[in-house]
């Protein structure tokens, strides 16, 4: 602890009347015993209290995480077996069953969403990264993407409902995929733009200096070099989409049957893990509730693994 602060910082203790006065010895009224750290002084005590408060609050904030994980392992782990991956959802009062169709539905709809949003997102990012950062159009695209990130996911569902379900008269995996793709798009655009911008300018110059056209520069240098970062973004977007429920509630709805029952058809209601959890959680049957917990465990594992893969990619990114 420094004693001078008590003299200099007027907010803490009123200092000597005029520190620049000619004949004043600034240390005249300083008792050097004050150098010792003492909890009796309010500022030390407050410091300690606040530090402990902040530490406690941070730890408290982590309790839900551990609680969720433990509950998933405890309640979900009990019923986890091969059956849940292969069987269909049980009817009320029925025992056993699983949610194989929901896993398949989630995978298919996320793949569909990825198919739409990845090309759209990466090419938009290429455009953004090559235009000047301060150009108004690029700014508008970036702002739009940022707004879309904070967009309520249910509105993406409302949009897909209005465009696809109302128009083509039915709930479908396609409508679900479109709704999810809207949620994936901004994440992909923003992370891919960042990744492309992080490619060292000297590499771009080298390609241009050899006479590469802008397209060749993009495909042969920028995208390969930025690939780890772009993949990170894609993985994050997929993880987010896989866990989304709200946009699927009234676009893909739910189904108790396999998607490819009677031919592979994406234009029929489709089950997904997230909607299954929602539906089963509210049912008054223990079997369904148990299955909801197993489904939650599977979903969280799916999301976490995707996230971890994404983070593994991000470590391979090249910086300037």
């Amino acid at each position, binding site marked *: 602890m420094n004693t001078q602060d008590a003299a200099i910082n007027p907010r803490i203790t009123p200092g000597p009347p005029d520190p620049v006065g000619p004949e004043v010895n600034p240390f005249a009224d300083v008792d050097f015993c004050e150098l010792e750290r003492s909890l009796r002084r309010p500022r030390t005590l407050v410091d300690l209290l606040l530090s402990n408060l902040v530490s406690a609050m941070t730890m408290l904030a982590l309790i839900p995480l551990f609680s969720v994980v433990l509950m998933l392992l405890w309640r979900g782990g009990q019923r986890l077996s091969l059956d849940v991956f292969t069987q269909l959802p049980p009817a009320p009062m029925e025992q056993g069953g699983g949610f194989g169709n929901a896993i398949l539905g989630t995978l298919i709809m996320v793949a569909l969403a990825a198919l739409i949003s990845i090309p759209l997102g990466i090419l938009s990012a290429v455009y953004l990264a090559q235009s000047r950062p301060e150009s108004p159009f690029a700014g508008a695209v970036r702002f739009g993407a940022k707004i879309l990130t904070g967009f309520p996911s249910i509105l993406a569902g409302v949009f897909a409902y209005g465009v696809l379900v109302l128009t083509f008269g039915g709930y479908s995996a396609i409508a679900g995929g479109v709704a999810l793709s809207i949620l994936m798009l901004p994440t992909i655009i923003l992370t891919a733009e960042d990744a492309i911008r992080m490619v060292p300018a*000297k590499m771009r*110059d*080298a390609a*241009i*200096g*050899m*006479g590469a056209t802008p397209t060749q520069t993009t495909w042969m240098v920028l995208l390969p*070099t930025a690939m780890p970062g772009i993949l990170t973004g894609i993985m994050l977007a997929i993880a987010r989409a896989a866990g989304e429920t709200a946009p699927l509630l009234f676009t893909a709805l739910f189904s108790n049957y396999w998607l490819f029952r009677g031919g592979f058809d994406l234009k029929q209601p489709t089950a997904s893990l997230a909607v299954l959890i929602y539906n089963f959680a509210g049912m008054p049957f223990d079997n369904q509730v148990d299955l909801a917990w197993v489904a939650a465990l599977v979903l969280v594992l799916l999301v976490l693994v995707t996230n971890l893969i994404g983070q593994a990619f991000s470590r391979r990114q*090249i910086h300037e």
Partner: protein
Amino acid sequence: MRNTTNAEKLSKARIDTAQRSAKETASNGVVIDCNIDELYYSTFKAVRDTSIPVKKNRITAFIGPSGCGKSTVLRCLNRMNDLVRGFRFKGHVHFRGKDIYHPSVDATAVRRFIGMVFQQPNPFAMSIYNNVAFGLRLNSYKGPVAEKVEDALKRSALWDEVKDKLQKSGLSLSGGQQQRLCIARAIATEPEVLLMDEPCSALDPIATRRIEELMVELKTRYTIAIVTHNLQQAQRVADNTGFLYVDTSDGGRCGYLVEFGESGQIFNDPREQYTKDYIRGEFS
């Protein structure tokens, strides 16, 4: 089958070269004729009255104090300045008699014939092999890529050091090796001219020596223009030297060519007072 076609191609190339050199003797062996009256970045006048002929199979060095615009002039020669917003200039740059700034000319095409090695070694984040093969792919080269890569690496004196690790990343090499890799990358496509923008400024003395030896070897096949602020380097390698200086008379910092000539003459018997002072080290 392929061998014969290659042999044919090679003999054709020789004939081409012969015809070309005939053409070039007529124009005094000047490959790039650069004439810059005024060069601006937005409203800032960076260079004026600079005219340098780059001669075939010679090393032409640009020397001068920092900020005199020597890199700017070099970057004009393959239109790298096009990337700088607000760049414009009055004058002309002729490459083999053709104006490269003519509206009908594609800048990317120009850069394929006039390669460039940059101040900072800038290999791509790919394998050594792919770095060198990059230019070949760019030009959709149909011939034997592996041979060309080996040839380029040999000519840039890097082959012995990397032949066992061609699939390793180009970024794993040391600074001097990276720069030689960049030279290999640039010469793999056999460009007409090689522009080098202070290629040794980021390297240690030993690596610098190697690059200098390399330049002297390479000039038998290529035409080289180099920017350097190391006078000894220019003296050691250059056949012709242009000295640029900064004119601050009208308040700006505008570079211009003070003197151009054979290196021997510039370094031993400069005509202009500024050149004398600079070479004697009276200012930097």
